[in-house]
């Protein structure tokens, strides 16, 4: 199954119904929303069910995210709290019911942003502890609904931190949406990260990136699928049968690991994994690949070609 994450897809984002039709026209088998609010801003059950029927008619699966669950930063969860009439838990349950109506039984979320990790006022470990508490509290409701959440390997979190969260919350209700272009932002090598996360991976996000040297370390530049530093055939090998979602990222992140302050926020970073960045940057330079980041519009067609050849 190969679907499409709706965000950043050229021409998408205005009308969910039109995007469904466009997804089917691309020959893909699913469409993933960032949150159910994109389908129904009021989380109206009738509207959601009707939308799912439309997707069924086109032979499309629907997926959904829940957004950020960094409860330690109230601004990240403001909409959830509002949806719960001022109560976060109520809001979350409403969202779970909404995504279930879309048929998305394993919605994904992310914790926050790189700024959250680097926050001077709020320790990252404390933010993770708050997230763990919320997830533990939500676990019985997830089990009741036969649902589980997937934590995305987002740019601010390490694979080891994700594994620790899963162990704290329970692997039956928390899995992983593995998005390899993001793990490099934390200095991790994609294949070792995949091995660490493998038992918990329920969904894979497809995109590719190359690495460039900068004066302060390295930079992730997104590029056409198959043309970058990720060994996708090897990455996918352990995940046969796992749903793959095309995810055209936008962020052009720096990994300024020459700065001791950056490394101070990367406890436990293994040298051998940092070596992945060094090797990729050196190979790109040796090959004369200096191109800047390719836009989602430039990357969509190569991605469709790649998935057509490799996955469908």
């Amino acid at each position: 199954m190969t679907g499409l994450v709706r965000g950043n897809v050229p021409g998408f984002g205005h009308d969910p119904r039109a995007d469904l039709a466009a997804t089917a026209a691309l020959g893909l088998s699913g469409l993933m929303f960032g949150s159910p609010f994109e389908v129904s801003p009021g989380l109206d059950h009738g509207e959601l069910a009707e939308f799912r029927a439309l997707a069924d008619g086109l032979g499309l699966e629907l997926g959904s995210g829940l957004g950020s669950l960094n409860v330690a930063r109230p601004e990240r969860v403001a909409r959830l709290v509002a949806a719960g009439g001022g109560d976060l838990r109520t809001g979350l349950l409403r969202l779970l019911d909404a995504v279930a109506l879309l048929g998305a039984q394993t919605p994904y979320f992310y914790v926050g942003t790189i700024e959250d990790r680097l926050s001077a006022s709020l320790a990252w470990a404390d933010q993770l502890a708050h997230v763990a508490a919320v997830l533990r509290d939500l676990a019985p409701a997830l089990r009741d609904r036969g649902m589980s959440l997937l934590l995305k390997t987002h740019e601010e979190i390490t694979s080891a931190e994700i594994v620790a969260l899963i162990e704290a919350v329970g692997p039956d209700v928390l899995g992983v949406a593995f998005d390899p272009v993001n793990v490099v932002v934390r200095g991790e090598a994609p294949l070792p990260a995949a091995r660490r996360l493998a038992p918990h991976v329920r969904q894979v996000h497809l995109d590719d990136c190359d690495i460039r040297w900068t004066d302060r370390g390295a930079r992730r530049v997104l590029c056409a699928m198959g043309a970058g530093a990720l060994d996708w055939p090897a990455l996918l090998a352990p995940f046969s049968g796992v749903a793959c979602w095309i995810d055209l990222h936008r962020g052009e992140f720096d990994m300024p690991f020459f700065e001791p302050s950056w490394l101070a926020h990367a406890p436990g970073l293994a040298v051998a994994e940092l070596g992945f960045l060094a090797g990729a940057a050196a190979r790109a330079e040796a090959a004369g690949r200096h191109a800047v980041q390719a836009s989602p519009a430039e990357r969509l067609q190569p991605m469709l070609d790649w998935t057509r050849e490799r996955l469908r």
Partner: protein
Amino acid sequence: MRLGVDGRKIPEAAKRGPVASLDHGRQLGLDGLFFRTVLEMSPTLDGGYLRAIRQRADELDMYLETGLGKVNPYATPEAPELRQIGDGDIVLGFRRMMEACAAIDCRELWVGTANYKVAYVGRYAYDRFRTDVSWDEQLRATASFLRKLAPIARDLGIHINIETHEEITSFEVVRLVESIGPDVTGIVFDTANVLQRAEHPVWAAKRVAPYVRQTHVKDALVAYDGDILDFQMRPCGKGVVDFGAILPILAAARPDLNLTIENYESFSDRPRRFARLVMEISDPDWLAAHPDLTAEEYAAYLEMVQLYSQRMQAEGMMDRPSWAAWAEQNFHYDAAVAYIEQSAAHIREVCAAQRLPLRVVAA
């Protein structure tokens, strides 16, 4: 501190022999010679001849340093002279060498842990990566052998100084010294070899400083060839090694330390093909073989390489293949002398700028 040169690699060392090489070193404005091993000075440990070398060094007011040999029992078969000089008993061989050194008042004695294998390019050139015996086993055997030599060293007032040689890390050298005892062991800090173990020379200097007793002062180009790094020797000041940062560390730790320039060897003295030295700097298995390396030091190392690459461009330095080709054709007596003089000038300049206690030789 005094500034001298390598007694094995000073040009025409073999042709001139140790006594005349001392004069040669003095002519080049240097203050001492560091002969790698006492057997290189006299293969028979001829007391009279060794005294003559000492006498000439004293007459010229130059330091005289030397050493013993490899102390890794897995590597000593590659140096049969060590066992031979003990008539089959290698511990006796080392005792005889140590006694001969003590007799000419050489009590800071170099040792190494393995031989670099020029026949191979890549990890198998380094005995760290032997497939028959692990590096840990070699280190254990080395420590065990050094423990046998320790009482002899103690009796004779000798420090057995382990070089930060190509195959060993400074972390491991420090651990060896601390486990055998700094009363009888020390470190020969080679400022550039550590690069081959992905160590930043300044970080390594800080680690070895408490135990440093001899030096090989040298510099190197480190530059990418694809995703591996090439290592080529360069005169001090022309490579990645930051002597401005290292020398104050060493001077503070041991103000009477001798700084011995290890020059690139003349192709007339040792005809050879240009040997390629590489570091598989991004290979996960290669990196995993350096368990003491931290992300912080690795990052500092990578930054050092990037800065050097920018400097090479800015200064229009010769690149790796051009230098290799040039050296094979041109690195003979004159080039080796120029290399030593350029290195010496840089070290003197750094010491003068920072008011470090380097003895100035009258012209």
